[in-house]
């Protein structure tokens, strides 16, 4: 490993880079292992779980980012690229027959996990320069036909996933389904700009939704203006509750999330991203390493997306 180079906002990239060895330790990297590519250590190593949770496969995106982001300690490393590919391959192989994915129990058809996993897998493949497999398209088709939840962040993830897999596979049906999910998301936005999470407001999930919209705007440049307009209204709502040091009162929110995802802030509200960075430098906001195995992968990938966006 070599020393990390500052990239755009050093705090985003470096905070995420610090978590890379931990992410690699979560993955089964053993050649020939039947669970090679699995990031759910409780399943493949401790054998405490009887199924692999798709939630952990976001590790594949983190490794793909690590291998392709200039300044990363693993930039250009072929082994890390291969481990990222193995992560995507394990994900698609672990899907249910209908294309859905399980998060907390075997044969679960989790809208949330399927949407985020498909988004992250497709982003990983795009970074690696690989095409979408038929299995990943099947997963996206399940999202296209599944009934959306009442959680805006999951609907935003579905819209971004469908657009991302659709772009990768050049599948117009998926791209059109993405537009439909985007319309569903609009119905979940309140007059003051907040996206509803099971009927309530939550700044943490608001930032997740903005992050998904940032991915959507990136993979759908033809829809970028419409997506940005919606996202900026969402950022305005967030601005009213986020303090100058990037913190907010989480004890009274709908879902009591304590984190903020920075990618959407960097893309749609640089002043809010500035507040977040101030908090990061002061140790006031949650960094990836503070979260547990289930969540740090997701936040770390978002930090690297933010770092890449700042550099762009």
């Amino acid at each position, binding site marked *: *490993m070599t020393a990390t180079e500052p990239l755009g906002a050093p705090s985003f990239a470096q905070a995420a880079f610090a978590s890379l060895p931990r992410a690699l330790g979560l993955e089964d990297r053993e050649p020939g292992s039947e669970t090679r590519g699995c990031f759910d250590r409780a399943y493949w190593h401790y054998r405490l779980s009887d199924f692999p949770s798709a939630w952990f496969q976001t590790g594949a995106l983190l490794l793909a980012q690590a291998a392709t982001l200039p300044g990363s300690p693993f930039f250009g490393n072929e*082994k890390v690229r291969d481990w990222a590919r193995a992560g995507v391959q394990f994900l698609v192989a672990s899907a249910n027959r209908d294309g859905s994915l399980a998060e907390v129990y075997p044969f679960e058809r989790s809208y949330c996990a399927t949407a985020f996993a498909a988004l992250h897998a497709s982003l990983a493949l795009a970074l690696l320069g690989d095409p979408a497999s038929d299995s990943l398209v099947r997963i996206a088709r399940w999202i296209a036909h599944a009934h959306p939840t009442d959680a805006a962040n999951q609907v935003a993830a579905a819209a971004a996933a469908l657009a991302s897999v659709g772009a990768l596979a050049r599948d117009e049906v998926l791209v059109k389904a993405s537009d439909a999910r985007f319309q569903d998301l609009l119905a979940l936005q309140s007059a003051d700009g907040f996206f509803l999470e099971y009927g309530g407001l939550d700044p943490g999930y608001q930032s997740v939704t903005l992050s998904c919209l940032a991915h959507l705007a990136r993979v759908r440049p033809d829809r970028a203006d419409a997506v940005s307009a919606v996202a900026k209204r969402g950022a305005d709502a967030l601005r009213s509750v986020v303090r100058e040091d990037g913190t907010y009162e989480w004890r009274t929110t709908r879902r009591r999330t304590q984190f903020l995802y920075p990618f959407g802030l960097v893309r749609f509200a640089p002043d809010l991203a500035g507040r977040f960075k101030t908090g990061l430098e002061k140790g006031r906001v949650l960094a990836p390493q503070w979260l547990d195995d289930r969540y740090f992968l997701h936040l770390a990938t978002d930090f690297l997306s933010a770092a890449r966006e700042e550099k762009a």
Partner: protein
Amino acid sequence: MKLTPFKLLVLRTFNVTLGRFAWADRLLRRMLLLLLVKKKEVPYVQSARFFAPDELD
């Protein structure tokens, strides 16, 4: 050896029935030690298989 839903069901049924007795727990531990460690060419170690930088060499 993966933990499948069926194996988990059998294990938990044993845990909450006979497994309540110390002798049954000792028996299970002895069996797991034999299956996962002593009879294995590469013994199972929980605190292993993390990432080490020399994997990239």
